[in-house]
């Protein structure tokens, strides 16, 4: 079963990225987490996302695309990245979410990937 871990971070966390070095508690922690996932054979994919200020949101209304600067949701915590893991159960996914560095400074949302919908789209 595929689970997506959606990583939410606040403005200060995004700011730490630039100042961070490869061994410290921010990037360093992420590197170790990534290694653990890969070595456990559960890592399927994922990417960190650039800061919310780089986001552009698009909607189509009256057949005209409305382009808006900024992320879709204007919340304190913003989507900062996602990870896809192949795991046997929700509990296993919740355990990996708890190990995620963002769980301690932000929040990690766990969502199952819907294989049913995927089949309908990709078949």
């Amino acid at each position, binding site marked *: 079963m595929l689970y997506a871990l959606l990583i939410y971070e606040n403005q200060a966390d995004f700011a730490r990225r630039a100042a961070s070095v490869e061994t410290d508690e921010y990037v360093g922690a992420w590197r170790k987490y990534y290694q653990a996932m890969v070595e456990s054979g559960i890592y399927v994919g994922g990417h960190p996302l650039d800061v919310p200020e780089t986001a552009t949101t698009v909607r189509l209304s009256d057949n005209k695309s409305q382009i808006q600067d900024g992320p879709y949701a204007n919340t304190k915590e913003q989507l900062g990245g996602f990870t896809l893991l192949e795991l046997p159960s*929700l509990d296993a996914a919740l355990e990996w979410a708890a190990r995620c560095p963002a769980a301690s400074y932000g929040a990690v949302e766990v969502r199952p990937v819907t294989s049913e919908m995927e089949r309908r789209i990709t078949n």
Partner: protein
Amino acid sequence: MKGRTDEQAHRAVEAVARESYGRLVALLATRTRDVAGAEDSLGDALLAALTTWPRDGIPKNPQAWLLTAARNRLTDHARHQQVHDHNVPILQLMTREFEEIADPDALPDERLKLLFVCAHPAIDPQIHTPLMLQTVLGLDAVAIGRAMLVAPRTIGQRLVRAKAKIRKTQIAFEIPTPDQIPPRLEAVLNAIYAAYGNSWEDATADPRFAELGQEAIWLARVLGEQIPEDPEVRGLLALMLYCEARRPARRSADGRFVPLSEQDANDWLMPMIDEAESELAAAAQMQRPGRFQIEAAIQSVHAERAHTGRTEWTAIAAFYDQLMQVAPSIGGAVARAAAYAEVRGPEAGLALLDQIDPQAVIFYQPNWAVRAHLLQQLDRTQEAARAFDRAIGLSEDDAVRAFLTEHRDH
């Protein structure tokens, strides 16, 4: 002749549904991780049994028959929908597994796993207990509403949502690891006790409810074997055993309701009380008091009357104080008022009743029954009669209605 076999078959279907519903749902759902699907397919299987069994006779192992029929429904459904394909091989394996079991009692019991799934922290905590009552103990929405003091229709939708979450997120059907147990245990204990409470309310004519009480006690026993070091599990078992020991004394020979204070202690089942005492003592040794241990202690004081001939209401009132601090509830608040009425008189009891939010107890029968008795003791006859009428109107049991009517008009 045909009519008789029909009736026998119908009764057999009803009996196996009553005795095995939760077991069968748990067996199916443990393998497919789909509670709603397990319930639907079992419902279909029971319907099929109603037409097949009168025609072909009652199968030797009715549970295995139902499981096979339910499993076939699930496989058909999976093929038809072309979803949950991963369940099909599991289901096929399951058939062989069950068909080889000739003795129905040898079927594995997965109900504890199902209980812990229902109490998973990923499920809305408000729905933990109703979910367990429905899936593991087979209660319908009305009975759940009564046990939980909420309207049945508010529950249905949320039950559906919870079951969808179990299926879609694939919560595992396992006994949780030791560190995961404590946060889920409270919900499991609450559900078992709610089931027992439901059986207690309807102890009269319907044997289904007496059986539900036995089921609840049995679940607490199994839980105690799994988690021997938890004092609340033992406290709950003790509490239910104290109550169960009094079941035969709750009705007179001619079927009339006998309140606790008028029960003949000779009618209590002493071996059951002894077992309750030793469970409670074992729990107390662990030095971690909790809601169920306190409630059991209250029943223990009542049980002492079998030896001393009197009831220590001061001790009971003190335990209710403690209970209301640890686990405040409407039932506890009303019972506390009744206990203080015994210690300090009816005025004191009434004053405590008046402190409870009236909206919260407006449909709560014990509130009106206690109020009626206290008003009557104070010779406030008219108010007492009105409270009696309300209590009678809220009663669900003929014997209780008769008892209250008699006291109103005495």
